[in-house]
């Protein structure tokens, strides 16, 4: 690439950076004040593009386009305010994890609502009236609209900066970012302040989405790609920093633009297509920043990490009654192949449930005792599944070996990602793990030569005798029992205690010689490896694996399973996974709008039990007790 070509590509990157900035800065502002990471922020961005499309095509002309963009920003701001008043206001005191789940439920609902309103097709808006042309820059044609985008980003940055630094509203926002309760005790109406900030953040996202209408088609997958991009930007720039958001947006967008600009390069020994490496480059940037500055380029270490943990009972060994119950359940499961002769579907459901149990138990291992709320556990499921499937299809290894390799592939991924993840905590960790999972998903999706892209890998069937459902069920049962007992053993061993010690008080743990990061890193790796077993079993059970099955939704399914069962008990994930997998296989497959249905279930769960199910039971007990 020539030097001028390089510069031109850099300009391109700047115009993309503005869009990234609008969504990331809103996310950051909202988090600062409300302490809620709004996963639905990408959905608001996506809505912005759709609404602006409608304005631009229905009204048309300059008014429909430019007026539509402004109206979209306001409209999305109003939607944001409604969300805050109707939903979020009820869950400010709920555990962090529930807040994240509630906003994810919004993602599901908004996505299905958009599908219902606008249909599944991509919608390409008109070009911007007045800015249809291009101007010559460095001997190439740069669309005037891109130039407009390049300018508007920094303008909004300046306006926000002035508002926060120079106005009373800004001072109140900054004060509330540090201590909401104290701001209230000084006579400031927090509720109004929160709604205003949420509307502002939502409006910015809507504005950013609306601006894209002339560049890219409105697309139903935008919500999750936008939010993961925003997470990366916020993690790199530093949560709560407006300038950091812009700086990081520029860096990320530039790295991507330049990768695309470089294109295919022949190194003599082989050629590398850099335009396919944008995700890897993004990951590398994030990795470097997190090593050098764990709280982002312009971020600051969080002074107080809010303790959200419900009081947890000490671990007690299983009582004889519990052991007996376990034995009975196991015996019943062993008899299932006999019962299932009349209804073979029962065994398929059984396999699904057992795979879900392994998945949920491994997630619980790091979420509960480790205190690490991973929003990207699907990554290790996917690594295990693809690892096993590709070995079978590509290298024709036998199933046994593939099932051994599955956890090893997942382990490698968990060791790599976990190394970064344990350097953060709370919502930062949630965002980072979600971004990692999105990277795994996108890599699988893009790397068609290896993974078959969106078609996935098919024909991954187990060899005899495992091709009989009953035998495969018994194999799955055996592995599930081993996995659950192994994880349990580890939790009672010094290693599991050290993990909990690090969660309860990292400061104290370090002061008695425990390397908390290392312990949590190894815990993360163990969970990833066990999860890989679930992935491998899944590939052979279904005979195929596709990007769809390792999408973010699977990570969220895992969280719902763990919460359903109760995060503080070791048997919780088993119960939760069983209930959820059964529901999923029977009820949710009946409707096209299953996403919205799942979203509503999550919201119900969160609103009915804002203190967690365990908290709700404790409150109930208090009322019943005389």
């Amino acid at each position, binding site marked *: 690439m020539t030097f001028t070509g390089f510069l031109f590509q850099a300009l391109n990157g700047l115009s993309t950076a503005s869009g990234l900035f609008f969504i990331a800065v809103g996310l950051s502002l909202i988090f600062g004040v409300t302490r809620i990471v709004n996963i639905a922020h990408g959905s608001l961005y996506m809505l912005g593009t759709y609404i602006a499309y409608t304005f631009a095509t229905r009204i048309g002309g300059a008014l429909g386009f430019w007026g539509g963009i402004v109206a979209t920003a306001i409209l999305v701001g109003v939607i944001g305010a409604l969300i805050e008043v109707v939903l979020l206001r009820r869950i400010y005191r709920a555990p962090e994890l529930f807040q994240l789940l509630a906003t994810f439920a919004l993602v599901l609902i908004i996505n299905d609502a958009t599908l219902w309103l606008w249909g599944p097709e991509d919608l390409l808006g008109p070009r911007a009236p007045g800015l249809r042309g291009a101007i010559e820059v460095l001997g190439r044609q740069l669309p005037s609209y891109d130039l407009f985008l390049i300018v508007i980003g920094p303008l909004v940055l300046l306006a926000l900066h002035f508002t926060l630094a120079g106005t*009373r509203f800004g*001072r*109140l926002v*900054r*004060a509330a*970012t*540090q*201590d909401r*309760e*104290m*701001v*209230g*005790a*000084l*006579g*400031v*109406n*927090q509720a109004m302040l929160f709604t205003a900030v949420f509307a502002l953040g939502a409006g910015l996202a809507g504005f950013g989405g609306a601006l894209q209408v002339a560049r890219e088609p409105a697309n139903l997958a935008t919500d999750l790609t936008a939010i993961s991009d925003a997470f990366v930007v916020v993690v790199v720039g530093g949560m709560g920093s407006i300038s950091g958001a812009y700086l990081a947006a520029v860096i990320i967008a530039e790295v991507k633009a330049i990768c695309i600009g470089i294109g295919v390069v022949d190194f003599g020994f082989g050629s590398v297509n850099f335009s396919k490496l944008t995700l890897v480059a993004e990951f590398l940037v994030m990795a470097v920043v997190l090593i050098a500055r764990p709280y982002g380029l312009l971020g600051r270490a969080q*002074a107080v990490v809010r303790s959200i943990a419900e009081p947890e009972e000490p671990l007690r060994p299983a009582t004889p009654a519990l052991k007996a119950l376990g034995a009975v359940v196991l015996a019943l499961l062993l008899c299932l192949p006999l019962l299932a002769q009349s209804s073979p579907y029962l065994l398929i459901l059984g396999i699904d449930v057992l795979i879900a149990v392994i998945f949920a138990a491994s997630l619980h291992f790091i979420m509960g005792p480790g205190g690490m709320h991973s929003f990207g556990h699907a990554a290790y499921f996917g690594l295990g599944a693809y690892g096993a499937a590709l070995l079978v299809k590509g290298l024709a290894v036998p199933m046994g070996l593939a099932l051994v390799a599955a956890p090893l592939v997942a382990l490698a991924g968990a060791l790599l990602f976990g190394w970064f993840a344990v350097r953060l905590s709370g919502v930062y960790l949630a965002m980072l793990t979600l971004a990692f999972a999105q990277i795994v998903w996108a890599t699988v999706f893009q790397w068609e030569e290896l993974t078959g892209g969106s078609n996935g890998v098919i024909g991954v069937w187990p060899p005899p005798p495992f091709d009989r459902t009953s035998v495969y069920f018994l194999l799955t049962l055996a592995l599930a029992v081993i996995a659950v007992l192994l994880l349990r053993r580890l939790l009672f061993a010094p290693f599991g205690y050290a993990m909990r010690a690090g969660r309860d008080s990292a400061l104290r743990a370090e002061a008695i010689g425990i390397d908390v990061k290392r312990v949590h890193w190894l815990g993360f790796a163990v969970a990833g490896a066990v999860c890989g077993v679930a992935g491998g079993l899944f590939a052979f059970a279904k005979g195929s694996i596709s990007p769809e099955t390792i999408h973010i939704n699977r990570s969220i399914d895992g969280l719902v399973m763990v919460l359903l069962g109760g995060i503080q008990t070791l048997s919780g994930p088993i119960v939760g996974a069983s209930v959820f997998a059964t529901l999923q296989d029977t009820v949710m497959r009946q409707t096209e709008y299953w996403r919205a249905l799942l979203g509503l279930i999550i919201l119900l769960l969160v609103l009915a039990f804002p203190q967690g199910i365990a908290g709700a039971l*404790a409150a109930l007990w*208090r009322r019943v007790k005389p």
Partner: protein
Amino acid sequence: MSDAMLAVDSLSAWYGAARILYDLSFEVGRGEVVGLMGRNGAGKSTTLKAVMGLIAERQGTVRFNGGDISGLKPFEIARRGLGYTPEDRRIFSDLTVMENLDVGRQPERRFADGWPAPAWTPEKLFALFPNLAEMPDRLGDRMSGGEQQMLTVARTLMGNPLLVLLDEPSEGVAPLIVEQMANTIVALKKDGLSVLLCEQNIHFARLVSDRVYVLEKGQIHWQGSMAQLDANQDVQRAYLTV
């Protein structure tokens, strides 16, 4: 006494399942400094938080400046003229001294009888706390603990309160700063403000308090004037020291 600035009747409060306060009743008169004393965990801080509306699970009646504030939200209570300075200071560490003061700013107000309450400006507060005058643009987290303690009181005064809830101003600061705090409270009293003060340090309470309520396990066990408490070694031994 219906003319008390603050009249609390049967105040109870809970943290989750745990009941912390049991039917507390007490009053603070206009221009009076009242001490709430007792050991750690006796419920002193909880009492202030419950009066301020910062504890959701509470019962009882709280009347302030002639109006009922029992069910109000903290910001509504603050707007009635009740100031609150927490024990852990909680200044906004990313904001400068001037910005911290601005967040506390509220309109001027009057007592129920129409008499104007003292109206504070940063200039007047800098006269009261000369240390702060030297650092108007300093960020909160660059200040020492003693300076933060002064800022948190000054920030509360910016709201032109009629009564200040002051939680352990002597805890964790050097003896010299403790003395300055005592002088400040005496000055506020001269201006006609009331103060409800949580305190463990009897040497400090002695310098400023008119009357004292002694708390133990969320209940009031003794009340009387400061002079009476000073003379009563039994009460001191039973509830304050050993």
